[in-house]
């Protein structure tokens, strides 16, 4: 490389410390995994444990990938939990067994693709709405998605009349609950989504635009990027991912009700923050997001294994997100 190193520019750090500071999320994950392995005397490394972890975290992974991209553009999305809940209910309503008398469409038998189509469209439309409100309505993302959160919740209660949407067809449940050899289907879907998101963020113009908008929206506009259109795109993509999450979640649980996916926004935002997606915008990777999801996963698993009350687990999760954002802000705080 002919571009020379100048006096006064900052030399990249070398060695182990540099590796740790660059891959904090990976180092954290591996240390926690080893710690858990020691505490469980190796049981957490056995395949059934790993498999359970993958099943438990898959749906969250979709939500995390979506909100992770939004945070890269320096936005936020609080509507995740209730949008996923609404999607799960819509999808479930088209997958109920035809002989179930309490079904929303009793006596009707829909093709297997319909619940997915309806679910993904519902999620996508909510994402589109969020994006339009933020980009063209110029609402703060925080407030816009807080509003759509309530809208989604209202729709869910109206649509289901606050009842459980249960008795789903086995063929539908198998899509979520089945496995390919030892690997659960859900993990395969996540893997496929990861590849798509990786290509999007790493190999497309739009992905680079997301980083640019999050890094400096004004500079992005000056550089000819259509900031509004790209913002709508990122929220819509996230909505589609929430749609997939909702459809799969309904299949995994075999039902949907008003409590399905409650609090998932917190899980997803916590996961990507632990995974190194910065609230300052313009920073984050697909692999980081997945590592974040797995990190929170093993923390949950560990606490359950150690017999920590679920109420305390909630408390711990709150502290984790606060600590993660605190360190994130310390690391990237703009020098004024």
């Amino acid at each position, binding site marked *: *490389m*002919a*571009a*020379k*190193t*100048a006096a*006064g*520019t*900052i*030399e*990249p750090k070398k060695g182990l410390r540099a590796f740790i500071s660059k891959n904090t999320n990976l180092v954290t994950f591996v240390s926690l995994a080893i710690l858990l392995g020691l505490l469980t005397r190796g049981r957490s490394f056995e395949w059934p444990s790993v498999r359970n972890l993958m099943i438990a975290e898959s749906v969250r992974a979709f939500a995390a990938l979506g909100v992770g991209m939004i945070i890269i553009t320096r936005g936020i999305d609080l509507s995740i939990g209730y949008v996923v809940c609404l999607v799960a209910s819509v999808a479930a309503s088209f997958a109920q067994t035809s002989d179930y008398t309490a079904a929303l469409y009793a006596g009707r038998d829909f093709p297997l693709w319909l619940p997915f189509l309806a679910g993904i469209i519902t999620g996508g439309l909510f994402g589109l709405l969020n994006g339009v409100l933020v980009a063209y309505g110029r609402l703060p993302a925080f407030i816009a998605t807080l509003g759509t959160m309530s809208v989604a919740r209202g729709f869910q209660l109206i649509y289901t009349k606050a009842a459980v949407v249960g008795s789903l067809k086995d063929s539908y449940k198998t899509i979520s609950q089945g496995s390919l050899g030892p690997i659960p289907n859900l993990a395969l879907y996540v893997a496929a989504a990861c590849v798509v998101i990786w*290509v999007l963020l790493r*190999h*497309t*113009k739009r992905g*680079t*635009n997301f*980083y*640019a908008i999050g*890094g*400096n929206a*004004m*500079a*992005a*506009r*000056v*550089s*000819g*990027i*259509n900031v509004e259109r790209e913002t709508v795109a990122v929220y819509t993509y996230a909505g589609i991912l929430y749609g997939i999450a909702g459809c799969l979640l309904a299949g995994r649980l075999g039902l949907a009700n008003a409590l399905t996916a409650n609090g998932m926004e917190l899980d997803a935002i916590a996961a990507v923050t632990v995974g190194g997606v*910065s609230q*300052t915008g*313009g*920073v984050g990777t697909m692999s980081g997001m997945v590592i974040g999801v797995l990190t929170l996963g093993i923390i949950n698993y560990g606490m359950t294994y150690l017999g920590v009350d679920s109420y305390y687990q909630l408390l711990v999760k709150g502290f984790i997100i606060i600590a993660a954002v605190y360190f994130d802000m310390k690391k*990237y705080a*703009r020098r004024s």
Partner: protein
Amino acid sequence: MSDAGLEYVLEMVGISKSFPGVHALDKVTLRVKPGMVHALMGENGAGKSTLMKCLFGIYREDEGEIILKGSRSKFHSAKDALEAGVSMIHQELSNVPERSVSENIWLGREPLRRIGILKFLDHRKMHDDTSVLMKSLDMDINSSERMGGLSISKQQACEIAKAVSYDASVVVMDEPSSSLTETETAHLFKIIRNLTAKGVAVIYISHKMSEIFQIADEVSIMRDGKMIGTHPVADIDEDALIKLMVGRDNTHRFPPVESRIGELRLQVKGLCSSNPRSFRNVNFELRRGEILGIGGLVGAQRTELVVSIFGLRQVSAGEILVDGERVLVRSPRDAIAKGIALITEDRRGSGIFPLLSVTINTAVASLGSYLNVARFLEHRKIEAESQKLNEALRTKTPSMATQIQNLSGGNQQKVLVSRWLMTMPDILIMDEPTRGIDVGAKYEIYSIMADLARNGKSIIMVSSEMPELIGMSHRVMVLCAGRHTGTLEKSEATQESIMRLATQFE
């Protein structure tokens, strides 16, 4: 005021202040007499605002002392200064528009009424005190009116009243007439005379010659961080003032600009900003291989003009022609498609992506030209091209993957030039291209500009530095308060001639 015995109410003696690489103030001494209007003049960057920031404790001076009413003083904040009787009326008003006049005046020190252990705002006292204050200054402003509903000049009068309410002995006014009409300015002068009659000293910062001769008793001139001198206004005329403001040798050096001026590239006809306070009816043209400088004082609307040409702001009238063809530029995308590039004046605010790599910072505006058939980015080509451009401009960086925030200002600027060269523009607009970069890097930027002009690019350079305008431009176009007051050929462009056009207020 009862300090009649003192000759000076405020003395700033031997004030020096440096920033990394810049000597902003060099042993500056300013002495202000009570009951006088003391004008402070100088070019952009002469050090006037730095001096005032030292007075108000926003900057800490490296050496020198401030003596207020005979005793050494040191203020740590504008509030400190205010309480000691030194206040500032800013160019941009800083009030709370949704609150009333009296609430604004007593903000932060509201009179309280005690009932038992509770304290409540004493609205009546606030109102009465404000009325008395207004009457004493001969101002006709209702104390219960909403601040935001008043005209700019009345809001300014309120700020002056607030200063007086602090028992001010020195009031600093920074370009107070910049957004006032003629009648309003006349009224402002009446208020100022009212103040000086009470023994208050006014430091009046302005570029408008006519005002200085109308209102000021004494004038101090600053240049390049030094105090050039203080004169009674009666002893000096406009020509002498201009000479004192700009009279420096051309110490900077510039590479020769040897380009062949070719055909018309850009024509701007009757362009008006949609903001009525901004520029109006601007006409100019730009040829192939030409460097057109745009000069003017702060508030001349130079940046507004170029960002409007680039589609970042709306225009209400006029047309833009590129290569003889009328174009509609509604966004930067349109401008880029027409071969126009803009390097903004605010490198951090609207230039760099601090946390992203040098490569992405270079390529971000031209990613659309580096897609393969599947519309994926061709990383290898992008990296090669970014590196080639940055090497050609001799950008110094540890690697192309380094975050741009770790580069020096001059190198960041070179990355931004690379970014726009990658879009292959015909017209390159550079707003303050050498702001905040050191002398050596400046020369390199000038050389790059000269090379680009030689290779047939057309350049518009907005600059506040006179030597730069004169040294680099084929022609210098001068704006004053949004009006195009003239264009000077290279042979006519001198610091004096530019300053004369730049101060040609209506």
